[in-house]
């Protein structure tokens, strides 16, 4: 048994090394003045100073946050409304709704982006605006995960029962939903929302196809400047990574708190 654990440990170590190495090297590189030998020659903060004083990079990050946050919020609201109607009024529709929400896992990334682009690009409607197109494509993109998250939370708090109780006490169904159910499931929703947000924030494929030239986010900014200094560039990558890492950390903490709370409630 002991010998087997040894093999397992070695394997875990190798994979962890493989996973961490690119992160670490990029991190060191962003501080390195010149690195052409085994060790970098000197360390410097210049590239971070440069990045932090670069208005374009900041504007890119802000645009990226905007383009990722809006779709996440919209999708959450849309799915919440629809699932409310499903649970309270039309339980039979759930199958079809689930189907709609699972399809984007197959038609993902570039197929979605190119099909939306070719449908609406020259259409002269409001959808031919690239930013609206991008936001709507992102909405579809985060549909599967959002649906799954909201559905699980709504069933976990037993929405139907609670709403029945609320209506006996005289609250309308929708009023009860907004005042009781939504606050109850909110912590769970925030977690899925943050996860999808991080996913969208890190997207390059869809934005490259739909709105690369019209809407410059941090990702497209980095892409455009990829041939400049590698160090400056690593600094940009590190800043983006730290941002996603922070989001990840919050999700992790929240999830841990949530499961702890659930356990306590069950006890």
């Amino acid at each position, binding site marked *: 048994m002991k010998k087997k654990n040894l093999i397992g440990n070695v*394997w875990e170590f190798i994979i*962890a090394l493989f996973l961490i190495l690119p992160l670490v090297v990029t991190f060191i590189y962003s501080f390195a003045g010149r690195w052409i030998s*085994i060790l970098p020659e000197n360390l410097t903060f210049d590239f971070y100073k440069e990045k932090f004083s670069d208005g374009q990079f900041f504007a890119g990050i802000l645009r990226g946050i905007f383009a990722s946050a809006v779709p996440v919020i919209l999708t959450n609201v849309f799915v919440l409304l629809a699932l409310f109607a499903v649970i309270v009024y039309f339980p039979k529709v759930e199958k079809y709704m689930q189907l709609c929400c699972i399809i984007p896992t197959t038609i993902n990334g570039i197929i979605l982006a*190119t099909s939306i682009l*070719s449908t609406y690009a020259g259409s002269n409607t409001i959808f031919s605006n690239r930013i609206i197109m991008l936001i709507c494509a992102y909405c579809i993109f985060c549909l599967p995960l959002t649906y799954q998250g909201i559905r699980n939370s709504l069933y976990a708090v037993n929405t139907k029962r609670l709403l029945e109780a609320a209506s006996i006490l005289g609250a309308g169904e929708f009023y009860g939903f907004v005042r009781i159910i939504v606050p109850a499931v909110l912590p769970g929703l925030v977690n899925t929302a943050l996860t999808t947000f991080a996913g969208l924030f890190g997207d390059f494929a869809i934005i490259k196809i739909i709105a690369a030239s019209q809407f410059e986010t941090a*990702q497209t900014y980095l892409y455009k400047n990829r041939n400049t200094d590698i160090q400056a560039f*690593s600094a940009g*990558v590190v800043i983006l990574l730290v941002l996603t890492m922070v989001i990840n950390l919050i999700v992790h903490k929240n999830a841990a708190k949530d499961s702890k709370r659930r356990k306590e409630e069950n006890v």
Partner: protein
Amino acid sequence: MEYLKKNGKKLCFFLPFLLLVILFLLVPFVSMVKQSFTGSDGGFSIACFQEIFTKTVYLKAIKNSIWISIWATVAGLIVDFFLALSLTKATKRKKNWYLSLLNLTSTFAGLPLTLSFITILGTAGVFVLISQKIGFSALANYNLYSLNGMFIIYLYFQIPMGTLLLIPAFEEVKKEWREAAVLMNCSPIRFWCKIGIPVMMPAIMGTTGMLFANALTAYTTPYLLVNNSIALLPIKIADMFVGDVRQRPELGSALSLVMLGIIVLVLGITNLIKRKFEKGQSK
């Protein structure tokens, strides 16, 4: 009509969701299918598909894409399986630490990931330069800008995803079963072949499908590394819509359908195998 009048208000809750799905999922999909069957004269034709399945460029793109996806899936699955296996035996603290690492690296994808690999293993990459200095030839001539060289990045993004999907499956294999098997003199290898893997098969197949689709549709990595020097489906598709040369949306749509066909085929096969094992379980 009566029904609509009665339930009209309630149906309004579906409106935003339905509009989104219809306008940005259904309509684009239908128009893509329609476009792929449109000939140069505007009528119905299968010329695009004929072109795809006769021209070497497209056949090569399909072949390359399937090839790298299969390898990335198989290699990813093997790595993920043993990693998840050893993680189930690890202490809780280590497991939590590892799970955080996997969660973190699962968001490390696309552009930043590819760029960091360029910093490490690109033509002027750190490891390549170091290897040249110390004369380690295996890495000194590493060519990241090729199908084989790119494979390492594909493997990288398959590890967190696959392992996170497989860990719950390992928890289904009860400890008691293993103990019972050991009591009856069953070797660990035999236990996994006869009991463990068959029980986990549905989850393994689900993971296989996800990994395959993930590798097949990966766009950012090959776009940044090889772009058009190696034919790959996602790049060819995007080029038909936003490329610098000649844009041919009809052909792009047809290529998208081919890619979708491949995904559906693989998902179908994995689902079939999944069903078979699920049936065995309920008996």
